[in-house]
């Protein structure tokens, strides 16, 4: 009843051997032995995450993190115990319990690290989280951990970079995240271990953009995490790489040319990170058939667009004119694309192309 992904008729595949192979896979009920559905995984993960806070809070109230070596030992023991529980526990509940305990140990270790190395708390947190994330990523195959821990790491690094305000550090962080993101979503062979990290990096991109908007538009102090031109160039390059990959898959350069020219025009008009990032998510969501990414991109595109017009330093009439012009441009390009698609779908065109070739 509630379809997450688009479903295509198998008989559209022209090659009979391939069509039979796909049809037999679809009808072989492999889905039955598949992973649990996303909703139940999300519910279970959310439960583990919430429970970890209730497990951690008594440890913090005992001021355990101030006990030096003892707290480090206890934190590492908790993580070791939870890894054992996860690896040897077969049931879903044991694994959920293990993740909650592991997140609790993770929190305790972070507090301990900050207590041991006073000074730059966010730098300490980032380094400690990096080490914990690396260990856990390869030890456990939990989707939740592979999503939450890298995202937490990016958030810590983002706050650290914002506080230090060294020139170029924010752009470097964005570069790392963008490269990871393109590498994770670009190839068609999606290994299961990389997928949660791909989602994590998608959320990280949105968080970086939101953080930039919040910091650069606050009234008391204007800090910019990102250099405007450098980061826009970086995102534009990522957009171009994704478009080229799509064009390669389609054996056609027309959509790339149209989309890229459209993008250039919109960039010239909007000059906005958030729109580019959410546009990228929408594009990749459709390309890679990831409805969550598509939904995320659409929601944030709306939000960034609203914020962009709301915060424009111009009169209402100028804003209105800009909105009308952008809307008219969108409709014109949409009409052109509809027309091109209709021409492409004309009956007999495929035959003509095949005969020509």
């Amino acid at each position: 009843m509630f379809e997450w992904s688009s479903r295509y008729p198998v008989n559209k595949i022209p090659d009979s051997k391939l069509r039979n192979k796909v049809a037999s896979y679809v009808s072989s009920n492999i889905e039955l032995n598949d992973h649990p559905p996303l909703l139940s995984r999300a519910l279970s993960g959310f439960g583990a995450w919430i429970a970890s806070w209730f497990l951690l809070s008594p440890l913090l109230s005992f001021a355990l993190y101030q006990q030096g070596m003892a707290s480090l030992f206890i934190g590492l023991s908790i993580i070791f115990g939870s890894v054992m529980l996860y690896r040897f526990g077969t049931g879903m509940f044991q694994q959920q319990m293990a993740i909650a305990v592991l997140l609790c140990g993770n929190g305790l270790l972070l507090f301990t690290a900050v207590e041991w190395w006073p000074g730059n708390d966010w730098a300490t947190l980032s380094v400690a989280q990096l080490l914990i994330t690396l260990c856990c990523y390869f030890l456990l195959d939990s989707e939740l951990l592979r999503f939450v821990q890298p995202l937490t790491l990016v958030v810590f690094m983002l706050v650290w970079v914002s506080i230090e305000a060294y020139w170029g550090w924010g752009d470097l962080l964005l570069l790392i995240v963008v490269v990871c993101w393109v590498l994770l979503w670009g190839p068609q062979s999606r290994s299961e271990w990389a997928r949660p990290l791909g989602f994590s990096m998608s959320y990280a991109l949105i968080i970086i953009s939101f953080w930039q908007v919040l910091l650069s538009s606050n009234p008391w102090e204007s800090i910019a995490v990102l250099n405007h031109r450098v980061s826009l160039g970086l995102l534009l390059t990522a957009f171009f790489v994704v478009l080229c990959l799509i064009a390669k898959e389609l054996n056609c350069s027309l959509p790339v040319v149209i989309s890229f020219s459209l993008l250039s025009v919109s960039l010239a008009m909007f000059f906005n990170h958030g729109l580019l990032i959410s546009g990228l998510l929408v594009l990749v969501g459709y390309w890679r058939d990831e409805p969550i990414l598509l939904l995320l991109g659409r929601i944030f595109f709306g939000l960034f667009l609203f914020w962009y017009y709301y915060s424009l330093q111009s009169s209402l009439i100028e804003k209105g004119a800009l909105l009308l012009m952008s809307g008219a441009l969108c409709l014109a390009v949409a009409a052109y694309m509809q027309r091109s698609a209709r021409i492409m779908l004309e009956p007999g065109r495929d035959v003509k192309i095949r005969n020509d070739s």
Partner: protein
Amino acid sequence: MQSVDPSKVTLTQLFRMHSTGELSRNELELAILSLRSSADWLQWISRQLMFCGVVLILSGILYVLAFNWEVLGRFTKHGLMFCLFIGFGGYAAYAGSHTIKGKLGSLSAGVCAGAWLAVIGQVYQTGADAWQLFAGCIFLVGVWIPLFRFAPSLMLCWTLTNLTLVLYWWQVAVPGDIATVNVLYLLLGGINSLFLLFTERCLPGTPSWLEGAWLRLVLLLYSTIAFTVPTCRIFLEPALAEWDEWFLVVCWLSLLVIGYRYYAFRSLVMVTLLVTSLLVVLLPSVGRLLIINDSPLGYWAFAIVLLFSFGGSAYWLNWLHHTKLVRESAHV
């Protein structure tokens, strides 16, 4: 949620076939290209742009009007709204009720008509409350629905109905001691549940434009929120609850039971929504009982309760999903 239909395939299934080695890279590329061609891509991008363009133009019109509002004369204001209404309505009629352009045009015309009502209220200082304006809007958006059969228009109309009721209670009923807030919760939950029941059971062969699952999801969401909020409050402070308030708890429980019975093997999203409502009501009350005087044992006990309740719900949902797939495959 995936269902077993051997004649249709998702791209995710193709990617999975490739990752398990059942499809080579070339075969995967060929399959994807034949299922989703350049023309499909162009159509998809054009739909996104069309939606974006309509939203931008409507917002632009609002900005332009807001800028010039004070200097515009009474007739100009009405003239502008009339032109917009006629423009969008005419475009919708020209494009036809079967095209997405026509449907979007009808939605825009309905919104413009609603805005015109607000203009009338502002120009003539009718002294109408906000709920009266929204009630008028419901009518003006609603008349387009049977003509253009567009589900987002129906949902907009229904959301406005909910909003009108809330505003009426806020502005008239509660200050005038006509009715209490609990009656509002009951009414909101009741009408949304009944509408959901109507769309599920009473329509003779659901029309294609009402087939979208999101419509039912929104209706169930509205009903669940309307019953969950008061129930949560009653569960947290049971001693303060009046006897008539327990009726809301009965309604909430009925919604959960009937909803589960109906959707258990139909839609996992709906069941998840019902399960979430159950957790939202029960967990804060349990937490309040367990965590007394900040006792560490209470925190840990509550953590175990959380793990059991969320884990149990997830296990239950998995079982439903699996059973549904087994039944569907047996049916196929």
